[in-house]
């Protein structure tokens, strides 16, 4: 299976590139920050620690994967490694999916390690759901970063586009709520702005509904709610894979 070999080489590159050390540093920094802030809290000190650690680890997982995918892919493009791979008797779909599987594997490993770090602060069931959700979220980010890296072929634009998509997806629900609130402008311009916001939201995943800290603080969600939120994430990740494959097949290399 050439795609599996490709995925394994991606995992090996991440390990040799120091990703495990960065993951460990993220956990140490998160625990230290949470412990420091909880010292000044007069109540909910344990909830504060869990919330800070979960939010920080989630952000670290996403940033590490986005940077890893973009830098690894662009290094391969710049070193003409991608051209060499394409000259081999291996379909473009296998090449793309093999790479993505490797990056998604890195994300799943990060999600697993970060979930284990949260176990002292939250019930195991809630942590498991949070971790599975984080794994799907990070796989989505890997798919987005691979798509942008392949399409834009420049490091900074690829990371910026991935970060823009991610941050917008996480804050879009709040932006929509503000746009349609009681203080919203009711003129034509206001209505056009609301419509535009709603239209953009249709093209984004609901990242504010997954990997929620409230699951760790107030108990796990219902299976149906969790399934719907994570299912939508998986659907969007598949959409990004399809878009990436579409673009990769059109590339004239």
């Amino acid at each position: 299976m050439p795609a599996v070999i490709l995925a394994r080489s991606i995992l090996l590159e991440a390990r040799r590139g120091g990703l495990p050390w960065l993951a460990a540093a993220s956990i140490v920094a998160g625990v230290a920050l949470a412990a420091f802030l909880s010292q000044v809290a007069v109540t909910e000190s344990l909830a504060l620690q869990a919330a800070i650690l979960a939010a920080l680890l989630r952000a670290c997982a996403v940033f590490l994967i986005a940077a890893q995918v973009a830098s690894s892919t662009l290094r391969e493009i710049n070193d003409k490694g991608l051209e060499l791979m394409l000259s081999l008797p291996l379909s473009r779909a296998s090449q793309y999916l093999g790479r993505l599987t490797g990056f998604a594997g890195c994300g799943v490993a990060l999600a697993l390690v970060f979930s284990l770090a949260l176990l002292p602060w939250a019930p195991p069931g809630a942590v498991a759901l949070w971790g599975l959700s984080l794994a799907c979220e990070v796989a989505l980010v890997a798919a987005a970063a691979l798509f942008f890296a392949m399409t834009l072929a420049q490091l900074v634009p690829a990371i910026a586009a991935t970060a823009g998509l991610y941050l917008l997806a996480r804050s879009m629900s709040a932006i929509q709520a503000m746009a349609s609130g009681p203080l919203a402008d009711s003129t034509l311009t206001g209505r056009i702005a609301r419509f535009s916001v709603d239209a953009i939201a249709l093209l984004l995943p609901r990242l504010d509904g997954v990997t929620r800290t409230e699951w760790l603080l107030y108990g796990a969600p219902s299976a149906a709610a969790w399934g719907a939120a994570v299912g939508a994430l998986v659907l969007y990740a598949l959409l990004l894979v399809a878009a990436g494959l579409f673009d990769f097949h059109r590339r004239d290399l």
Partner: protein
Amino acid sequence: MTRVQRPLSAVPPWVWGALLALLAAQIGWRSAYPQGSPDAADFPPPPRTGLLRIASLGEPEMAARVAMLYLQSVDFSGDRAIPYQNLDYLRLVGWLAAILELDPRSDYPLFSAARVYAEVPDPARARIAYDFVYRAFLDDPNRRWPWLAHVALLAKHRLGDLGLARRYAAAIQRQATAADVPLWARQMEIFILEDLNELQAAKVMIGGLLASGTIHDPAEARFLAQRLEELEKRGSAKNVK
């Protein structure tokens, strides 16, 4: 992650000098202008909850708690003779309301309102804090009754406003109807009218909350134990006089 490097002696002396001088300048600059905690005068107006929600990037629980720590840092210096004397309480309550709206299940804003800000010696400011706790109680009585119960005791013992204390007590009695609400809270009006001093009432209340397992956070348990100790000291000082 290993890479071959030239020896330190390969770095020109002027680069060494520049690095060390600029590092010293950075440390000196930061030491000369230390970042103090925000002062009451710098206390900004409360943000809209929508803006806080956008800024939280989908992490409202974390953002609410961090915002509470920020609020706590405003005028929270322990060396002040009368803490919070300069705070604009209308702004303060606006912040607390926005934070509570961000994470309605967090106890932090109401704990701070009832146990910290409502205990200010200024009656006008205290009443603003009481009113905030009362309005928040009405949104979720079965969860938020402990804070209103504490405020009822403050209204009776600190403010000497028995009418206000009875009003809050009646609200608890009428609206906190969950099975886990203790008997003394369900008969809050009688509890308020009983001839208990502040220490005795606080002992019944805090002791009851601790025994029922309502308080499980170590920082909160520590804070309440400290408050009881302060009340005891104040009571014994009065007896000596």
